[in-house]
């Protein structure tokens, strides 16, 4: 062992749940940890796209950076052959089974990534302002309308961002980055009432 052991950052890491529990609603913007969801990464050739949507229960959006929703489920366009199929509160296994059955023989890839990320809601009249302290995209309603979703960055982490209402944004972030994102959002919220 090195005689100068690297014991790393002196800062204790506060778990996400503790951060979320300590967060107070604000006039300008509030943060909320979203409950668990099934998330499937779907990739495929043209032939697989229709059947995948049919099996999931909603047509996969073909317009770039848009999501489609039906009931609680949503399909997020992330790339020209890439979607995240999102089913809050559901277990991934039956979903995988259904989809794989529908996609048998069609060139595709379906990977369960339910546990890979966590969801954070940023809501309130200043939500876009708060998000713009780390996200470089234009979040004006005309540039980032309700129904839009995309991978992007927030400070030094990657996120998937979508807008479900004028004042509500949802972030999907890989779980190990979530405390960092949360703390930056809290910092960004300061002074917004």
């Amino acid at each position, binding site marked *: 062992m090195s005689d100068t052991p690297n014991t790393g950052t002196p800062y204790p890491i506060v778990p996400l749940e503790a951060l979320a529990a300590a967060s107070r609603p604000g006039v300008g913007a509030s943060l909320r940890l979203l409950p668990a969801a099934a998330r499937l990464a779907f990739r495929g050739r043209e032939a697989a796209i229709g059947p995948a949507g049919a099996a999931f229960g909603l047509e996969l959006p073909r317009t*770039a*950076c848009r999501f489609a929703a039906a009931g609680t489920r949503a399909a997020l366009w*992330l*790339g*020209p052959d*890439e979607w995240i199929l999102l089913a809050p509160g559901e277990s991934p296994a039956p979903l995988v089974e259904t989809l794989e059955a529908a996609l048998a023989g069609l060139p595709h890839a379906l990977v369960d990534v339910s546990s890979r990320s966590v969801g954070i809601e940023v809501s309130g009249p200043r939500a876009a302002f708060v998000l713009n302290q780390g996200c*470089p*995209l234009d979040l004006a309603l005309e540039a980032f309308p309700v129904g839009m979703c*995309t*991978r*992007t*960055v927030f400070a030094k982490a*990657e996120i998937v961002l979508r807008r479900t209402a004028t004042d509500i944004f949802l972030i999907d972030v890989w779980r190990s980055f979530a405390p960092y994102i949360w703390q930056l959002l809290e910092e960004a919220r300061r002074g917004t009432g």
Partner: protein
Amino acid sequence: MLLIDCPYCGLRPEIEFRYGGEAHIARPADPSALSDQEWADFLYARTNPKGKHAERWRHIHGCGRYFNAVRDTVSDFFVTTYRTGESRPETEESAR
């Protein structure tokens, strides 16, 4: 921070992208058929032009796709962007 026109997602800020070096340097179909010098040229020789440069970018923090662009390396303005697999467009006039 450049503003880059992803062929799939539209204009997005540079920090969502990863630069991929000179475009249209195809990996030889049979590398073993190449001489050492030919292989070294494939690996290392670059046009590095002062002017219009065909180059690869990946929208890594976006749609994840690689695509190609022609950019003027003097002004840093893009002339055009196009999808991987498409050939380099004719670009005489500089666009904004």
